[in-house]
């Protein structure tokens, strides 16, 4: 069973880079049993990525008004993503749209888990807010645990896309 982790966001827009940072850390630490990739958030690109594995974990930033650093875990194969997550992408076409389009086209993988990290600051620049940096650490740990729990063949070394 193939497992793919996708970190979504823009590294040049503050906390929008949270998902990408999780992916970067996972790769840096080395991951066995999953591919780890990064993506800017274009829905067509994400849709393509979603079709590429049986199980997918997406990590994205969110701007829903929740407390900075709040982490939501949503099993998107079972329920639509909340409306609040649809505005985080400046391209108006992000993770939620890609997931819903995949669902409508019958292309949704067996499992899609979305981690959304609430970020207060999306201004230009590479820095994450302190609360988001802590959340990134927590999410990196939790995603690693999920990878370890996922059944399937274990490959040696990170398969870096």
């Amino acid at each position, binding site marked *: 069973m193939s497992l793919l982790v996708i970190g979504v966001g823009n590294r040049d827009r503050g906390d929008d880079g949270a998902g990408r940072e999780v992916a970067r850390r996972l790769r840096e630490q080395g991951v066995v049993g999953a591919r780890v990739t990064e993506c800017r958030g274009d829905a067509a690109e994400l849709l393509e990525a979603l079709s590429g594995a049986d199980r997918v974990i997406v990590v994205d930033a969110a701007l829903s008004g929740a407390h900075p650093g709040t982490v939501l875990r949503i099993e998107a194969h079972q329920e639509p993503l909340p409306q609040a997550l649809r505005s985080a992408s*400046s391209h108006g*076409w992000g993770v939620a749209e890609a997931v819903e389009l995949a669902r409508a*086209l019958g292309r949704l993988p067996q499992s899609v888990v979305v981690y959304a990290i609430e970020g207060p600051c999306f201004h230009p620049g590479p820095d994450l807010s302190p609360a988001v940096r802590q959340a990134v650490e927590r999410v990196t740990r939790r995603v690693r645990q999920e990878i370890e729990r996922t059944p399937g063949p274990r490959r040696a070394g990170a398969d870096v896309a």
Partner: protein
Amino acid sequence: MSASDSRRTIRVDALARVEGEGALLVRLRDGRVTDVQLRIYEPPRFFEALLRGRLYSEAPDITARICGICPVAYQMSAVHALEAALGVVVDAPTRALRRLLYCGEWIESHVLHVAMLHAPDFLGYESALHMVPEHRDLVELALAMKKTGNDLVALVGGREIHPINVRVGGFYKVPEKRALRALVERLERAREGARRLVALVGGFSFPEFEADYEFVALRHPDEYPMNQGRLTSSRGLDAAVSDYEEHFVEEHAPHSNALQSILRRRGAYHVGPLARYSLNFDRLSEGARDAARSAGLGPVCRNPFRSIVVRSVETLFAIEEALRLIGEYEPPDHPQARVEVHAGTGHGCTEAPRGLLYHRYQLDANGLILAAKIVPPTAQNQRSIEDDLRQLVPQSLDLPDDKLQWRCEQAIRNYDPCISCATHFLKLTLERT
């Protein structure tokens, strides 16, 4: 508020299906448009400042990050400008390979806009997602075509988003013949898809609307323009790329973070598919010209709503051109030309999917960037978008507010505005007083 009242206000807080963030304000008094302001509120990009002090060779990769949709365009304008500054001339195979890379970007960018962002306007859906139950074929077709464009960019550019294989003087690594040939079958399928797409969008109904634009695009002696050519316009402009700033100036509009470009002494002008097509119809492939005619287009198109058809025709052209370039491909003997660093200034203009993209760099003797200037297509079209709305709104006053708002948004999307590149966009406010 009804259409018969003398005062009307329509407000849209976030215009969807454009790349970036921004707002539009339209004020009406007694059926007359008194004010149109395209407001751009995304913080300005500091790329021009960021480039100062960096080495010339970093500019293609830094500027590629300005846009996730058209990074190739930024890389292409950057390398042409820097090569002009350093007196570098690339060989014919390298030039052809760059054109092939650009074809890939045109395909992915145009297909995304035509089918996923603009078609919902014509078919009456909120988004591509809502189109799926009744237009699944169109959505599937577009996704497959876009994937082919992505794969072409990934193969020549090194990866899909923000290609890393482009450098001043050529490429880091050139693809093998065999790898490119492997794309032929899928490109042939995409060509069939593009023909269907042209016919399909050609059958949409279009508002009766024409504008007296001054079209501006590159023109090349024998090619439909992408990487090279002279700056030409429908009112007689014919200038070298290095003279760009003699003819075009940027003005700061108080309501917008983005600078607005105007033609000196003439004002607004129009760049992008409509301009390219209308100034270069004779340079299109025969297949693309035939498809255009069958879809009801003449050699010049002044109805911006029909830009969706022109984009589809350009998609077909880019696919045919990619097939031609792959058929003739011979890997360059040297992936990159020799680059000798010295002080200098260079200018580059290429045709991004959304239109003319200008770069200028000034280098010191060590190749460090002293000054950079980047003028993206959406900044150049800003005035044209406002002018269209000034003309369109009075013609559409009989529409109820929600329909009028829809029409305005559709008119803005005619430009496939990339507001993150131009710095920026969209909220829509319509005030009728």
